[in-house]
């Protein structure tokens, strides 16, 4: 990743540590974005919630996303131990679960359009927050797909798998965000 070859007499920089710090800071930054979305929900609506919210679907997509976090974790651990087939299998599973989650959100949106359209006060926060989150899921799926594509070429070894680690950490973060979005949109009262 280093842009310039180190000149003579320079101690090589710990690239992995730099990348990790950068990614964590990015995650910190993104958590403020979700913080803004969630606090807007409470500011506009208090803890009110229309009765038509589909609780079973909410639980289902939460499960799917948590499961995808597990497979993402397995992918990273496989990469760390140089277990290539495990990496590829789990990456594919994560991407599939991510897409399943997006389909779930799509079904949810389809229903929500009837009960609380975007112009409705609850619809405003519901569509904005889930849309923002789904956008992050989509970028995560794209990142994981690139990692899968590169992984098939054997680009990641057990000593050098930052690509996997970065994409997976981002994926987990998207999951953490959902952990707070789920009760805010579906459960709280």
């Amino acid at each position, binding site marked *: 990743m280093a842009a310039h070859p180190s*000149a003579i007499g320079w101690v090589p920089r710990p690239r992995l540590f730099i990348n990790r710090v950068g990614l964590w800071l990015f995650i910190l930054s993104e958590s403020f*974005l979700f913080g803004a979305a969630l606090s807007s929900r409470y500011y506009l609506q208090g803890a009110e919630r229309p009765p038509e919210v589909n609780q079973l679907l909410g639980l289902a997509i939460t499960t799917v996303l948590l499961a995808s976090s597990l497979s993402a974790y397995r992918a990273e651990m496989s990469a760390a131990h140089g277990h290539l087939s495990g990496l590829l299998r789990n990456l594919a599973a994560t991407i599939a679960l991510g897409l399943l989650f997006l389909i779930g959100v799509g079904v949810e949106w389809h229903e929500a359009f009837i009960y609380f359209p975007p112009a409705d006060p609850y619809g405003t926060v519901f569509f904005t927050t889930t849309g923002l989150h789904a956008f992050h899921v989509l970028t995560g799926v794209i990142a994981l797909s690139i990692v899968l594509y590169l992984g098939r070429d054997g680009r990641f070894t057990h000593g050098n798998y930052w690509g996997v680690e970065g994409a997976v950490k981002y994926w987990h973060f998207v999951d953490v965000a959902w952990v707070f979005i789920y009760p805010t949109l579906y459960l709280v009262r």
Partner: protein
Amino acid sequence: MAGSSVAKDVGLRALLPLVKGFLFGVVGFLAGSGLVAGVRALMGQDPWKLGPLLVVGYIFGLVGWLLGVGMWDYWVREWFGLSRKEEPSAGWGRFFRFCTDHKVIGVQYLVTFMVVLLLGGLLAVGMRVELMTPGRTIMGPGTYNTLMSLHGILMIAVAVAIIIGGFANFLVPLMIGCEEIAFPRINALSYWLIPPVAVLLLATPLMGGFETGWTAYPPLAVTNPRGELLFLLAFITFGFSSILGGLNFLTTIITLRAPGMTWFRLPIFVWSILAAAMISLTATQFVGFSLLTDVLDRVAGTSFYNSTQGGKPLLFQHLFWFYSHPAVYIMILPAFGIVLEVVSHLARKPLFAYRWVAGSFLGIVGLSFIVWAHHLFTSGMDERLHLPFMVTTELISIPTGMVFLAGLGTLWMGRLQLNTPMLFALGFFFNFLIGGITGIYLADVPTDLHFQDSYFVVSHFHYTIMGGEIFALLAATYYWFPKITGRMFSERLGRLHFWWMFVTYNLTFIPMFWTGLHGMPRRVADYPATLADTNWWVSVFAFLLAASFLVFVWNMVYSWVRGPVASANPWQARTLEWLTSSPPPHGNFPREPEVVGSPYDYGIPGAVHAVVGAAAGASNGE
């Protein structure tokens, strides 16, 4: 230099990436808007609704522009395992293309935002022409509002980005002794997001202007002409760029300090950038979200601010100021860093109470997140919030006071060189003193009930941002000019610039406190006849103030081309950036520097800050 072969890129071919970026951008825009039109047509909706076409087209166009201008060649190719194209490491062409050298990016930022600063200044001149006499002078109120709003957002962008983007990019890696910033390509990305912002903002008048000021309060921002949409998209893009910048500086300062560069050996400017980057990394997300809600209300039919549907306009003000008040510390913290740096090196005295100042910076960061609602004292928010926010706001005067003590304590018993950078630093202290004191009047609720949204506010924030930050910026520009360009500016013209600007600046803005007290609201094109004389004089001095920048521009341009060649360390300063050539080579230092002491140990015989290459023995010791 590591490699002996220096790739050069000269001639018009160097501009090719810009052309490519532009073409890709146009293609992206057409693809994005086409996609929206297609999807809408399929869903049985009017495909030519302008809002969605613009928003999605812009996002695709932005991606196209970035890919064309260099992301594809230097970035995406690597993802797909292709060989990365080499970028040139010398030649002027580097300044017009995607380049990952932090020094090039620093200069790109500096020059771009200097131009924007002058442009914003010209808009201010236009406003002062209109305000010279009561009644309609040269333009209607709609034009005035657009002019004023453009002036606002351009200057806010300058204030947020010019020091961090320009000087911090150029100097932080040098000052902490590393060869490159943590994420060079993200750094280049955050610069190349700026040209679309500029294009969008300058295109707003073509789309009917925007009349909300830079604050974009809904519901006005939702009902305003189409120019507003461009402004919102530009602001969001700018916020994204500033988040990436903050990310880069934090990572760099945390992970890339040279051996021996402990936290309390960091130059104070680096501390100030660290503090400012913390704010821009986090709080900017809030303004991004608030502007996004404006866009959604306009384009997607949500009702965040549509009160007939249960929306609450005050939500925007909370979200917006949760960023935009901390943003003033993104502007002023680097300015604190600059003036303390300049004062210490040019008074040749250790920076007084260094650790206390570093602590104060962090204190300001902490407090900056809990003061935002002092912008809402008259907004109709819950009155129980008035007292707590008044208290937190006034607490900020304590760490700020520490900066003044550090400045005064450093000057005391020093050996001051009263050259141009020092004069601007001293001017900073005078102006910011006035700006800080008048801030108390606005933080105190009883007086704020009268002053909120009046010219008192205008004068106050111009004292802190222009009298404060821009004076610090100019101090920095003169102080580091030899390092950046390798040439020396004209000291005589520099002093002329300072005195001309300092006097006309104060004469322009002092009377505005009076007009504010006497009931002149901000953002108006007209005022009662009783304020005519004062406004006439303000306008006259404002024109003279604008003219002082002619001296500055001439001095900078002429000296950059024709000025005498500067030595590596013309000020005999001790920080690391002066221990390499002017301008620094690709890779910054011939060998990795090793830091062995404080950068401020003036007057201590034998004290050394850093050694660059033990073999060469080049050090800044006595």
